[in-house]
């Protein structure tokens, strides 16, 4: 009986010891957690429109520095567009929380078959055509042309889709309706053509 009792005590002690040791090894180190380097965060979409006849570039910009935080993106358009003008456009996607800003356009171009930008104007303010293509001959949209006709007010939505169905009906002409895929970036710019 006594040996049993001793055994019991011994076991309890052993268990307590195991628990103690385990706690010490894993216990809360007071180290602060590392800040996460948000690698794929997209904060900024910039569309630069260069008038073909020369003149000042027009810059459309959407900046959302807090990512999926509560602050809405800040949208800016540097100037009004001119009627009956063709602009050469270029898109840039960046992560501006890093310094220097990370150019994510490069990643988009690296995987160009899996990405496509879509341009959706309202009120017939402009027509947009693609100026670039991926390895399969389908458009990407980083390079594009934008042509205005009459004066009007409306909006231009620029959407970047990941893994769209580029061969679906209308998609290579820039119609997003059948594109599917996932939205990586979407910005709505108010546009005035004068």
């Amino acid at each position: 009986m006594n040996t049993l009792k001793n055994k019991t005590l011994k076991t309890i002690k052993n268990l307590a010891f195991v628990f103690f040791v385990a706690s010490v090894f894993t216990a809360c180190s007071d180290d602060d957690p590392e800040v996460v380097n948000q690698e794929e965060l997209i904060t900024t979409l910039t569309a630069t429109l260069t008038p073909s006849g020369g003149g000042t570039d027009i810059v459309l910009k959407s900046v959302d520095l807090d990512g999926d935080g509560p602050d809405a993106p800040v949208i800016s358009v540097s100037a009004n567009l001119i009627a009956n003008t063709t602009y050469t456009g270029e898109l840039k996607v960046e992560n501006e929380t890093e310094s220097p800003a990370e150019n994510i356009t490069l990643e988009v171009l690296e995987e160009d078959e899996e990405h496509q930008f879509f341009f959706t104007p309202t009120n017939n303010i402009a027509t947009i055509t693609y100026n670039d293509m991926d390895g399969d001959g389908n458009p990407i949209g980083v390079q594009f042309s934008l042509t205005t006709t009459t004066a009007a007010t409306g909006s231009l939505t620029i959407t970047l889709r990941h893994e769209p169905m580029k061969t679906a009906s209308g998609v290579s002409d820039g119609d997003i309706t059948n594109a599917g895929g996932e939205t990586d970036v979407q910005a709505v710019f108010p546009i005035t053509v004068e």
Partner: protein
Amino acid sequence: MIKRIFFSVLFCVLSFTHFAQECNSILKGIVIDYHDGTPIYDATIYIKNLQKYATTNFEGKFKIEGLCIGEIHLTISHISCETKDVKIKLEKDTFSEFFLEHHIESLKEVSIVAAANIKSKTIQSTVLNEETIAAFSNQNLGDALKEIAGISSINTGNAIVKPVINGMHSSRIIVMANGVRLQDQEWGIEHAPNLDINTSEKITVIKGANSLEFGGDAIGGVIVTEPSNIRLKDSLYGKSIVSSQSNGRGYSFHSSLSKSTKKGWYVNAKTTLKKMGDFESPTYVLSNTGIQSTAYSLQTGLKKFESGFNAYYTFINTEIGILRASHLGNIEDLVNAINAPAPLIATDFSYDIDSPKQAVTHQLVKVDYYKRFKKLGKLKVQYDFQNNHRFEYDIRVGNDRNKASLDLDLSSHALSSSFEIDAKTDQKYKVGFMAAYQNNFANPNTGIKRLIPDYDKYDVGFFTIGNFIFNDQTTIDIGLRYDFNAINAKKFYSKSRWDERDYDVDFNDLIIEDFNTQWLVNPKFQFHNFSASAGISYQLNDENSVLFNYGLSNRAPNPSELFSDGLHHSAARIELGDLRLEQETSNRVSANYRFKSENTAMLVEVFFNHIRDFMYIEPTGTEQTIRGAFPVWSHKKTNANLFGADFSFKQHLGSQYIFKNTSSFIRGKDVKNNRDLIDIPSAKTVNSIGYYLERWYDFSAVLASEFVFRQNLFPDNNFETYIPTSDTTVFVDVSSTPNRYHLLNFNADATFKLSEKTNLSIGLTVTNILNTNYRENLNRLRFFADDLGRNYTLQLKLKY
């Protein structure tokens, strides 16, 4: 029954006292298995000084007449058991329960501790036996539990199945795995219990918070899984189950082997391998829904009546594909996905598991020791360690393509001890304590903001339970528990979120460092939780019995409810926790009525649960980001009332047919805002007719009809949103529930004796025979795709 004879051993204690004069008193009694409360057949009760004896019948009952008042020496014995002498004082005609303790108490030391409680007649509990569990060998715990009235599941697809007890799930349910409270990030709705169902041979579901021994926060209930018994003899035995199924074109293989000795030593090893490809709805492939899983367990120990120990290790690794079409970019994608009649991405069948997917490894180590003290009770000490490592993979681009988006490593230690005072049969007491430490590490190398922060968590708990048998009709249970929880987290908040939540008003003292656009914050919270339970059961007569119980429980907010902060791609939503949440308090009353006759069994269970400061998550608006708009789902609190009824019925029709029905119904109301609660299971009724022919290889065939009603009561969280690419404002229906559905299922099996010790069972199961298209309200992928189509499963089970 045969098994019971082999396994059972004898002995018990008993006390009753009476005075009378003549020698015509009658002693009636029932001999019951101490472990599972089933009657023991063919036990011998022998009165030495009178040379009288009796044996128990199939119901475990016996009767000895013509006894004189005074002291009687009883000897209770059972085949292959040690014989035990008991002295009692007989005073008049008496009925008493005799609990027979197994000599080798089976492996599950904890469940024995638990058994004392589970056996309590005053709680609403249901047991799934080995046969049922084996039938679900290739599925999940959550699937098997749905056999029980009142248990449903909340799913993400068909591989992530979380049990729901009377409308409660996740942190409101405790899952006990071989005596260890599973700590596997159970807060998340897409985090299924990390448990291989094949490691269990008995699963008990307890509805409500009346099993305080396991924890005080199980507002929904407790699921207790226990491994198999160990035979008390020199033997080597095991079983293997192979299942193959048509839907998913998958297989699962389980095998277990046990070695035991007469002296009580045992060792046991189990493994389960599972592989399935894409599942299919009646009309299309559910792309990327495959599963691959590997599980092992090993245990050894010594089991004697006086003392013993158990060491246990389990490993389970599961990789689960998430429906490709459910991964979304923004609200526009969500609208497109909801409105599409079929998933937007459906490719050919494949075994590949690509992103989005999750890969989880859970490891558990347990050692326990128990010792019995004569005429006093039993002491038990246990230490357990668990590690849960969860990776979730989203669809990513570039170099991060194969990098996890979420990498959480959760380690939990627990030390617990209990002492059960069971020297008297009519009153038992149990006291216990538990101390636990948990650390969560969220790996920053994912390159994605942490959804759950790093934290340390401490828990200390004490409980005491009393069980009183008033007479042979009435039993009372009372329990009290206190728990202290402390959580110490370190979390980054973007400054904009911090201000938007108004945390700058209340919590600025928690800030410990400034990281440009983010604050590093150190929230420390402490909670004191009191819980109590009380129950009474009353046997009206041989056929009718009732029970009533009451449970008070508190649950502290979990890390997800406090700290969630980020974008969930699988749901296209931003989820936000709330630092201001405090514990919720549940007051639950329930009652059972049970009828049991030779051919009929019926159980009616009803409950009412009022939960103050009930925590839930619901859409609260939209937020604009550079990806477009997202619905925001916030953790909130309200006061809730839930009530429901569960019904089980079984009727023998002649000797070969059995009709069964299980039905359940539940309502949930947000009483503060006078609206319905979200995610309340639909009413459901299952009718089955079974044909049994024991003399022909134990043949059985069961046809079951499962009817699920439409959930008409749901909160309206629908909203309108502007879709820029089509320049339209659309209505987003995230609330309306799917239509009612009806499924037909069939199962047939037969068992062939290959040799003295070897049995082969062959089973064929067909589910969704009519290949019905349907969507289940509590499947989170119901917005995107139909549920499973017809499936044939062939199962071979070899016992040796």
